[in-house]
């Protein structure tokens, strides 16, 4: 908890970080309350006074962002779609970093054979083409948000594992680890009490970048038509617009979900960068 407060304090220092944090919080509030604020249900079809379906209506007071081919309200769909984006993004990012951190900690701390084996496995995962692999997994299992989260976690831990391991390798030789050892602390104690707190800042940066990736990937999965057919997400709105072949006549249908993803992910990137610059000035993005 103190870690989270510390994180927010650091990000808050820069203007970009402040604006991004506010945007992110707004998105979370939308994910929680969006469905209650939405004027229509996500799948509800609107009919006009003559009982005709309101197809592809441009934005108006009744439909702030117009309607889809099947007469659904785009504005309401946008409000419903924030939830899956953020649930998938946040859970995937947390899971990814927890797996990656543990692999990195164990690999770096024990070294030797364990390190070799774990890093060979990590290398194989680094070679896996990310999106195609997830599509294959989803093709073979049920398609719902939990399988999407698990499929993404199964691959994304690889980069965190590498970064954390490198950090652990240098931490392992420090004096406070030797000191802990002389007091008779067990390996588990040293890994989780002494080393883990020191790699937390790196892990937090990992969370932000994983979050950004997960949100975009969730949208990509939706766009390719592999997401849960019963859940409206920003990606699936774009997919429907694309699959209907009508998006070229209805820009109001396809613009909002893309812009929403863009704003959310940009904010996440800036939060990550604001934190990174303070925590580790020599570790610039991507490096």
């Amino acid at each position, binding site marked *: 908890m103190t870690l989270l407060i510390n994180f927010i304090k650091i990000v808050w220092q820069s203007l970009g970080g402040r604006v991004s944090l506010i945007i992110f919080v707004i998105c979370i509030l939308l994910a929680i309350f969006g469905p209650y604020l939405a004027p229509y249900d996500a799948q509800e079809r609107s009919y006009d006074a003559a009982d005709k379906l309101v197809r592809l209506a441009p934005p108006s007071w009744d439909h702030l962002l117009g309607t889809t081919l099947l007469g659904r309200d785009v504005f309401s769909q946008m409000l419903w779609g924030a939830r899956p984006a953020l649930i998938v993004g946040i859970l995937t990012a947390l899971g990814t970093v927890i797996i990656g951190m543990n692999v990195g900690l164990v690999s770096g701390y024990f070294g030797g054979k364990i390190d070799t084996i774990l890093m*060979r496995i990590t*290398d*194989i995962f*680094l*070679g*896996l*083409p*990310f*999106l*195609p*692999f997830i*599509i*294959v*997994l989803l*093709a*073979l*299992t049920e398609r719902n948000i939990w399988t999407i989260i698990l499929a993404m976690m199964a691959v994304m831990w690889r980069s965190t594992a590498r970064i954390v391991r490198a950090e652990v390798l240098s931490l392992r030789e420090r004096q406070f680890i030797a000191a802990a050892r002389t007091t008779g602390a067990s390996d588990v104690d040293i890994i989780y009490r002494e080393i883990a707190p020191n790699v937390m800042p790196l892990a937090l940066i990992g969370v932000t970048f994983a979050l*950004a990736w997960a949100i*975009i990937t969730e*949208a*990509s999965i939706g*766009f*390719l*038509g*592999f997401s849960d057919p019963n859940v409206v997400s920003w*990606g699936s709105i*774009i997919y429907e617009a*694309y699959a209907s072949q009508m*998006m*070229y006549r209805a*820009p109001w249908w*396809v*613009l909002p*979900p*893309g812009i929403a*993803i*863009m*704003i*959310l*992910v*940009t904010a*996440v*990137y*800036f939060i990550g960068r604001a934190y990174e610059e303070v925590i580790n000035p*020599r570790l*610039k*993005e*991507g*490096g």
Partner: protein
Amino acid sequence: MGQFIFKRFWHMCITLFVMTTLMFFMFRLLPGDPTATVISPALYPKAQEALRQQFGLDKPLLEQYFVYMKNLAFFDFGISFHTTRPVSEAIQGRLLNTILLVLPSMIAAYIMGAFVGAMVAWRRGSKFETILVLVATALQSAPVFWLGMLAILYFSIQLDMFPVGHIVSPGMFPEANWDMYFSTDFLHHLALPFIVNALYQFCFPFLLMRSSMLSTIGEDYIELARMKGLRENRILYRHAMRNSLLPLATTLPMILGWAVAGSVVIETVFSWPGLGLLMVEAVGRADYPMVQASFLLIAVLTVVGTFVADMLYGLLDPRIVYN
């Protein structure tokens, strides 16, 4: 050096072997019967049996695996469930199409990213810099398929400048052959996906180059070059930029992997007949031999690309220690 290349090559082979094996067993062991689409349970048991034999599905799993691996060695990917023709027929040419879409845009993006990133960092603190960083981050944050759709919406439909998709105009080349790739029609179709992909790929090297330059500019040798009275341009290109290129070279293999994997969505938007589109279509038809084969080729492209980029990096930076 020779030893290093050999070791990396060996690792690459293991990676590919493990992936192939993983794929094979994933398709056979995960829930859901992938053969259900082709061998309908409604068929007579005898007919089911005959089909199973035709696809080699009646043999024990381990034997199927060895047959599969042996066939792969001869570029035999099995028979498509959908067309009941050899998969290798459908897959021919797809690999090249994907490479032609990914590689040139990638190279263009890296060169542009390096130069623009260096310029912007050189004149740091300008309004232009702030705007460009914001725009690049926003572009990087947008889903690339959505950018593609907007590009089609504006340039192809509104302005009618480019075709809406596909690799050549329908009917132009009834038989895909080499002439196709040298026609202006092909280039015309390539232009829009190329621009969108290059623009999207540009963001990462640009942002990386900028931050790398910012830390280089603070180094002593830049100050020294200034004191020697060297011209600004010379310091920029010869001293600062050269030394800042290293992180770009290090990340190239990783980014190449992303680009190949990401081609799935770009190909779908532009109906570009590459491996990614083939795979997505095959998943839709539950044509598992086709999915498996296209995935493997995408993986090969990624892994081999990474290997080549690693080797190039070794050539670029003689300081690298091979261990």
